[in-house]
């Protein structure tokens, strides 16, 4: 495909998306459900792309997403809740004197949240990343539980409001805010992946011993990858706080990590566009599959199985199917390209023909 055609396609795609966003923004109320799904998808996409950086590109199995998101979310929440609303939020114990006067604009708070997440990642990474990466999985998983119980602890009531959670976090003024921020985050990660450092990460994923023999300092690069990933996970957490408006420690349970993991696996480990696609599919699919939870009657026949909880069963079966039979996910380690898309449709068409031919020949 010619470069000019590609540019044209890109421009068309971007303008369609923009037009769609403007349309949604203008009809906010009617489409608030769709807007909220899009916002949530794109925030999860940042977390999934960040997870992909460690898990898909560097080959480290980290499961601390929920913990890092919690750090980012609480940083943003504590620093951006309007000062005048704080007395009402910290209604049980009041807020720490010093903190109660500090209010930051959204973006600096977000960056600070990412920064704290990265620092904590460093603290875990330094002891653990020298070892086999299996331990990273369990250490990060454990860490995110620790963070959750520390946030909820009564000792921190004056800072995190302990068990009572935080509310009145300023919400996004329009869909463009999360859209632009998330796109920026993903863009930065993509640029990193395509740089010399990104190649070093991939080398580590492919073969640690060989990478080391290429002069790549394993520990330093693993730590770099893990910390950058945690930084963006923290940012995703901060965005989530603003998206939700209220957070508490229960928001950041292990299931959140598993959600992100599912998105990454479904999209394909090692594919950024896969993660983004996966994020939209999972988030929207989750809502879309809600009907599984409602009793369904076709005509007069009451469909069995359809009742509360069935959706999550279907969901986990889908995950297992992807893992077992389509282990590469939707995109494998490939990225989206127009050629790929055209190829996909062509393939679909020719395969159908083949299939038809095959049936007649076979009989």
């Amino acid at each position: 495909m010619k470069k000019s055609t590609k540019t044209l396609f890109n421009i068309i795609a971007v303008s369609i998306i923009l037009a769609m966003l403007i349309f949604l923004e203008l009809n906010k109320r009617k489409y608030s459900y769709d807007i909220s799904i899009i916002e949530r998808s794109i925030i999860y996409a940042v977390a999934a792309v960040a997870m992909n950086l460690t898990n898909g590109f560097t080959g480290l199995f980290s499961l601390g997403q929920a913990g890092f998101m919690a750090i980012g979310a609480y940083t943003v929440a504590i620093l951006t809740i309007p000062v005048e609303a704080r007395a009402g939020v910290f209604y049980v114990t009041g807020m720490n004197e010093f903190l109660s006067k500090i209010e930051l604009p959204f973006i600096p708070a977000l960056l600070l949240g990412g920064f704290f997440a990265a620092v904590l990642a460093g603290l875990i990474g330094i002891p653990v990343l020298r070892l086999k990466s299996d331990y990273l999985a369990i250490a990060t998983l454990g860490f995110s539980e620790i963070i959750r119980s520390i946030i909820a602890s009564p000792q921190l009531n004056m800072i995190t409001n302990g068990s009572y959670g935080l509310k009145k976090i300023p919400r996004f003024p329009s869909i463009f805010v999360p859209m632009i921020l998330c796109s920026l985050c993903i863009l930065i990660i993509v640029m990193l992946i395509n740089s010399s450092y990104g190649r070093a990460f991939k080398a580590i994923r492919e073969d640690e011993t060989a990478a080391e023999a290429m002069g790549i300092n394993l520990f330093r690069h693993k730590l770099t990858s893990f910390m950058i990933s945690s930084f963006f996970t923290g940012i995703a957490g901060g965005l989530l706080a603003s998206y939700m408006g209220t957070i508490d420690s229960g928001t950041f349970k292990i299931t959140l990590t598993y959600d992100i993991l599912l998105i990454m696996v479904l999209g394909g480990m090692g594919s950024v566009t896969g993660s983004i696609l996966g994020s939209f599919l999972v988030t929207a699919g989750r809502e879309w599959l809600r009907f599984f939870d409602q009793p369904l009657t076709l005509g007069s026949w009451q469909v069995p199985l359809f009742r509360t909880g069935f959706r999550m069963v279907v969901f986990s079966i889908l995950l297992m199917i992807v893992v077992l039979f389509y282990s590469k996910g939707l995109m494998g380690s490939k990225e989206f390209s127009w050629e790929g898309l055209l190829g996909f449709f062509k393939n679909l068409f020719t395969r159908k023909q083949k299939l038809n031919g095959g049936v007649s020949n076979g009989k």
Partner: protein
Amino acid sequence: MSLATFLQHCLTGISLGGAYALIAIGYTMVYGILRLINFAHGDLFMIAGYLMIFTLADFPWYIAIPIVLIGTVVIGIVIERLAYKPLRSAPRMSIMISAIGVSLLLQNLATYLFTALPRGYPEIPYLKRIYQFGPLSASFVTFLTPILTMALVFLMVMMINKTKIGMAMRAVSKDYETAEIMGIKINSVVSFTFAIGSLLAGIGSILYFTDRMSVNPFSGSLPGLKCFVAAVLGGIGSIPGAMIGGFILGIGETFLVALGFSTFSDAFTFILLIVMLLVKPTGLFGEKATEKV
């Protein structure tokens, strides 16, 4: 803290530790052989709990217990066959993700079938009888758990060191490919490992839930994680290590709560893990493995 309170805490800690130990053994064995953190192990333990609720409703306890144990073993093997075996040559991360998937599936399936509300765990006669020793009070199961655990660990160690299948298991855990070349049937060894692990999880489940009296779809996940940590503490691959790790966690956690730090009782587990990895990455009883280049 008075002596009576102290002793009561000790009793609680040792009993909890015993149940942890039984689950930890399952982790350590599977990890030893497949290098897989079997995230679904804790959920298998939960499923065993539900199995008991339903079998004990229809059968007397002496029939129900074998049924539950056999059922747990069968489910364990089925999980291995369906979810792990097809991925044996896939990257390690895929198989761990598969394990997480199974864990999620079991939890959601349990929520769907039995609702999120906790179910009361039936009382097995004798186990729940309460004994009083002066100010101490505990049910029979509290005393039984650590003793049974130690007996089972002893049996397991004997089996691994003295029997043919035990030798095969050791061989597979040392070098997978070579063991295969030597004519060891990898599949049966792996299945056997899962069977043993599941059996212990089943026994652990009876002891644990009898003591705690209710099961919900998530009651396996956190104990599961903690037990993996116990296995790492003891040195992954080592069965006595897993037992010691289980006891350390159980007792440590109980005393942390006793001293008023319940907020950090879960954190304790994982801080212990990180400290251990810093000081002695191979765990208390683990052997150092060097990678062949």
